[in-house]
């Protein structure tokens, strides 16, 4: 919403400077986007008159001028060919910065003659590109007049962002009223005098869709002479970037911006029968004033006569019935359209107009007659003619009930102490009607403030006008007593896991929650219910089933930039479905496996590196790592045989290993790539939280007897999982066997085909007395038999 300072001053008597006005607007809730003050850079320049211009004694092309300036008569050297006696032009005193040349004037001799200032061209002032001569201005201008004023450039243009709750601020009057209430001047309330109709119009209006067009007021003015509007009106419209058309149209634009009261004018000669607001019919269309053809639909409100659709109600009229220089009879429309419906039609058609903007936000429902009267006055003034009586069809919604307001609420809600008297004063200045109601006030909001529905709204009015800066600081109260831990278990685990991952060498990334459907599908997602209706682009159209595709693509991008050793992780959401429970926390990590180069032998990163990392992170999170079982069945995007799941029961807590080459191909990522993914929400609840025993730990069991170890090597079938053998050994004598660790895997020539040797070290922990040889032998026998039973393995000879 743009307006000029002089326009504002039509409704606000104030001595305040533009800076003060802008500051106050900001502090009462009018967000100022910009102030364009074309005159500000011309502040030093004033009007001067050349008294005489003689040739410079030492230069053919220069003139020595005697100039009448605001500083008295001065001698000025000038190179302009048009410098001559009697010329009224722009003068810059010594010390002025000339914007067009970037030079600040100094009093120094020009070919021996001192120049006491400068006469300026349009180019030097950056007004235009004319550098051939100095400005030639109206000879009636008074010497010393500020140049900006003489050129009509002393009127700053203010551009504001209006919040949707204040459609009344879409008119300059509304802004002036609030500024006056805020003490910035006196609101100039111009009463609108009704103009008596001279005849009853045969051209009638009606509303046949009262839910869409509640009120349709019209007036015919016949015998008008349309043409350009007065210069002041044209200038006012141009200043806010509107193109003047003709007097009738310019009047509607003026009132729309001045009063937030959109109007429309029809060339009555083009109308047949009743002009009515009604819902559109399928198959109807019209050509709008923007030159586009619109097909109307039954959920849109149109204005139509007996033969055709004339335009969209409250949005844009049609070309056919528009007013032109030849219009002699004009029908003025001043209506009230339902804002929601108007808004929807605006969205559906993509039309942008000042009328739509205002009607969609909701105009003053009681402004229809005033709009017509104001327009009539201006039409008669600019174009002459004879007005009909006003026709009003339909009825405005009744005003909302008066609110009962306790002035103490301002202190309770906003923390600002405002007396009842001051509260009344503020509300009255904003147009509210106030009656005493016991200790409370009965407050009737004005018709243009339909946003005010309750006490809180009145508190806002009082607080913002009184000033939010009056709000005191209180000591922030602290919640007393015990409070719950400030983060959920899941969130705490994410924090721990995040730091564990980073300490293992992975850099944390934050990637989009969405990816392409193809990428999602390659990683087990891509379901219909996870698709976005309006993605930002087709490669971000699906909620991700995992962060892995985004991380893998990012790792490849890093490689393409020359950094091919990316190790990335992300701790963020994944989406299994669109329900609340379908969003889960996961930590995903990728490690592009590249041959390590180091003077000490190092191995190519493989599944066991990421297995180590995933177990380390799980440990850090507090997951029961010892109870997790590794298994080789994994989802399809993991490489079979080189990826595993860590499970508790049959539920996967984490997956690790190599990404399937097919999945990498779907992402266009070069492999091999190691990865892991931890499903935070799948992990069991921490024990302490479950048992409710508080944070105390069980007592430490410290045995005095030395543990001892025995080694065993078993020959087993190649397909036997090492973990099964280890588990069997561990279970052979639970009281005695404290630990089993696998230290060798051998396949090769000394082994039969299809067989391998697994060697374990078993730690025996005596509890009450030192073990005898016989007891050790017995334990060994139990181990051998347990392993044989579980795996078919035999002791290696």
């Amino acid at each position: 919403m743009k307006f000029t300072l002089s326009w504002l001053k039509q409704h606000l008597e104030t001595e305040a400077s533009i800076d003060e006005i802008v500051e106050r607007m900001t502090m009462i809730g009018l967000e100022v986007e910009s102030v364009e003050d074309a005159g500000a850079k011309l502040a030093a320049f004033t009007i001067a008159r050349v008294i005489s211009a003689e040739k410079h004694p030492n230069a053919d092309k220069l003139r020595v001028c005697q100039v009448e300036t605001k500083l008295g008569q001065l001698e000025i050297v000038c190179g302009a060919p048009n410098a001559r006696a009697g010329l009224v032009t722009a003068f810059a005193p010594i010390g002025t910065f000339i914007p067009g040349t970037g030079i600040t004037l100094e009093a120094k001799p020009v070919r021996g003659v001192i120049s006491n200032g400068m006469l300026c061209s349009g180019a030097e002032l950056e007004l235009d590109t004319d550098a051939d001569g100095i400005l030639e201005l109206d000879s009636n201008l008074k010497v010393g007049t500020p140049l900006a004023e003489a050129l009509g450039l002393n009127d700053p243009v203010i551009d504001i962002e209006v919040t949707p709750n204040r459609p009344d601020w879409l008119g300059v009057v509304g802004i002036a009223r609030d500024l006056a209430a805020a003490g910035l001047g006196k609101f100039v309330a111009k009463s609108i005098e009704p103009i008596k109709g001279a005849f009853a119009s045969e051209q009638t209006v009606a509303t046949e869709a009262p839910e869409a067009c509640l009120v349709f007021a019209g007036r015919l003015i016949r015998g008008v002479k349309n043409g350009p509007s007065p210069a002041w009106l044209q200038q006012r419209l141009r200043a806010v970037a509107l193109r003047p058309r003709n007097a009738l149209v310019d009047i509607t634009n003026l009132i729309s911006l001045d009063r937030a009261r959109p109007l429309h004018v029809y060339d009555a000669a083009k109308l047949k029968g009743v002009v009515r607001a009604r819902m559109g019919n399928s198959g109807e269309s019209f050509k709008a004033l923007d030159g586009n053809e619109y097909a109307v639909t039954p959920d849109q409100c149109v204005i139509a006569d007996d033969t055709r659709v004339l335009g969209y109600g409250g949005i844009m009229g049609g070309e056919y019935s528009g007013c032109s220089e030849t219009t002699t009879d004009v029908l003025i429309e001043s209506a009230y359209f339902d804002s929601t419906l108007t808004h929807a039609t605006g969205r559906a058609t993509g039309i942008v107009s000042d009328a739509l903007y205002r009607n969609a936000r909701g105009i003053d429902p009681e402004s229809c007659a005033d709009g017509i009267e104001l327009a009539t006055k201006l039409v008669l003034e600019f174009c002459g003619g004879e007005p009909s009586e006003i026709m009003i069809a339909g009825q405005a919604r009744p005003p909302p009930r008066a609110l009962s307001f306790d002035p103490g609420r301002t202190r309770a809600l906003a923390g600002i102490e405002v007396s009842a008297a001051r509260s009344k004063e503020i509300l009255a200045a904003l147009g509210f009607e106030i009656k005493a109601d016991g200790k409370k006030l009965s407050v009737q909001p004005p018709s243009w403030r339909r946003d005010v529905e309750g006490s809180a709204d009145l508190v806002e009015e009082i607080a913002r006008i009184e000033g939010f800066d009056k709000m005191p600081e209180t000591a922030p109260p602290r919640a007393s007593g015990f409070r719950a831990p400030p983060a959920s278990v899941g969130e705490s685990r994410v924090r721990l896991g995040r730091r564990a991952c980073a300490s293992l060498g992975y850099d944390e990334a934050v990637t989009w929650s969405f990816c392409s459907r193809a990428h999602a599908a390659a990683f087990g997602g891509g379901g219909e219910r996870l698709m976005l209706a309006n993605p930002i682009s087709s490669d971000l159209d699906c909620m991700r089933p995992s962060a892995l595709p985004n991380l893998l693509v990012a790792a490849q991008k890093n490689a393409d930039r020359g950094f091919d050793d990316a190790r990335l992780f992300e701790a963020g959401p994944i989406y299994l479905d669109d329900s609340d429970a379908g969003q889960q926390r996961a930590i995903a990590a990728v490690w592009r496996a590249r041959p390590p180069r180091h003077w000490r032998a190092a191995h190519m990163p493989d599944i066991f590196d990421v297995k180590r990392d995933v177990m380390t992170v799980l440990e850090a999170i507090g997951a029961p790592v010892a109870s997790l079982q590794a298994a080789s069945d994994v989802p399809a995007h993991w490489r079979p045989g080189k990826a595993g799941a860590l499970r508790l029961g049959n539920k996967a807590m984490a997956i690790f290993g190599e990404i399937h080459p097919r999945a990498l191909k779907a992402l266009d990522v070069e492999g091999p790539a190691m990865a892991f993914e931890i499903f935070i929400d799948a992990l069991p609840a921490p024990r302490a939280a479950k048992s409710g025993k508080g944070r105390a730990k069980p007592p430490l069991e410290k045995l005095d007897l030395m543990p001892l170890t025995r080694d065993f090597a078993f020959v087993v079938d190649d397909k036997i999982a090492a973990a099964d053998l280890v588990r069997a050994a561990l279970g052979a004598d639970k009281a005695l066997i404290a630990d089993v660790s696998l230290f060798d895997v051998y396949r090769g020539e000394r082994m039969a085909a299809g067989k391998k040797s697994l060697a374990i070290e078993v730690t025996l922990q005596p509890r009450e007395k030192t073990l005898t040889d016989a007891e050790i032998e017995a334990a060994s026998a139990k181990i051998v038999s347990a392993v044989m039973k579980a795996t078919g393995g035999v002791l290696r000879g």
Partner: protein
Amino acid sequence: MMAKTNDLENLERDLSARIAAASDDAGLEAIRIEALGKQGSISALMKTLGSMSADERKEFGPKLNALKEAITEAIVAKKAMFAEAALEAQLKAEAVDVTLPPVRPRIGTIHPVSQVMEELARIFGEMGFAVEEGPDIESDFNNFTALNFPPKHPAREMHDTFFMNATDEHGARKVLRTHTSPVQVRTMLKQKPPIRMVCMGRTYRCDSDATHTPMFHQIEGLVIDESSSMADLKSVLIAAIKAFFEVDDVRLRFRPHHFPFTEPSAEVDVGCDRSGGQIRIGAGEDWLEILGSGMVHPNVLKNCGIDPEKYQGYAFGMGIDRLAMLKYGMPDLRAFFDADTRWLKHYGFSPYLLPGLAAGVG
């Protein structure tokens, strides 16, 4: 007698010289055997003691014993010297080039957004705020309707909402939450006042240009009780911003604004200095808008089953990415989500730098 004494002196001189001259353990051992072995010269002299007179023995005995001790000691000392020298030689031989690079475990980094979220959780946690959570895929009710956005209201469209494609049985679509405010709704629906919470997380707007990304992060705060006012909100925000930016002097400016879910509503600017192309919070005469806030709208309380006649409170929301940029100097929002390892390593944080006193946030 004299002759014998002289012999002892000669023998000692001779043996001492040879021990001193010995060049290795073997040579030394030979000397030891020669002197102290069964057939050794000293041993032989010891045997003669028995045949001496008592006086002779009294004089000669101690001398001979002294000789034996002296030679034994000399040999032990020499042996120790050899061991020392051998160790020296061995250590010298085994020396490595200490300038060679070791195999070092890599240390990764924490993303600034995570670091800032933990800082904020800590700051608000200290002030008694619990951390609540909610899903990204939200119902229209939680994201809009409950928050007093009337259906089809223009304010909804100002949110550039992402909609899910799928519809429910009523034809309604879920949305990607456009702000963290639906977590207010969820919290109020499940918990009776007093409520004192923040929530942080991903939010989404269908918008992408130099300063907007389709996904970003917000923190939301909500306090509901019987008396909290905007003045309390102001105090909490001042304390939080002082702690976050680690400055003592913070100026806040509340500007009236409009949000459907608060009334009164205010945008809050923080005093800053923009000279030199950098924004410094807490100094200077400029203002920078950093958050939206206000008193929770009575309609929102009603929608969430809380009696607005009895309870009131405030809410505020801030952009976390923007807070990170202001505190840590990242110039470009888009780079947050690029996963460029150069950026992550440069702007990321050590995993050992837990927000707290050590990291400068208390």
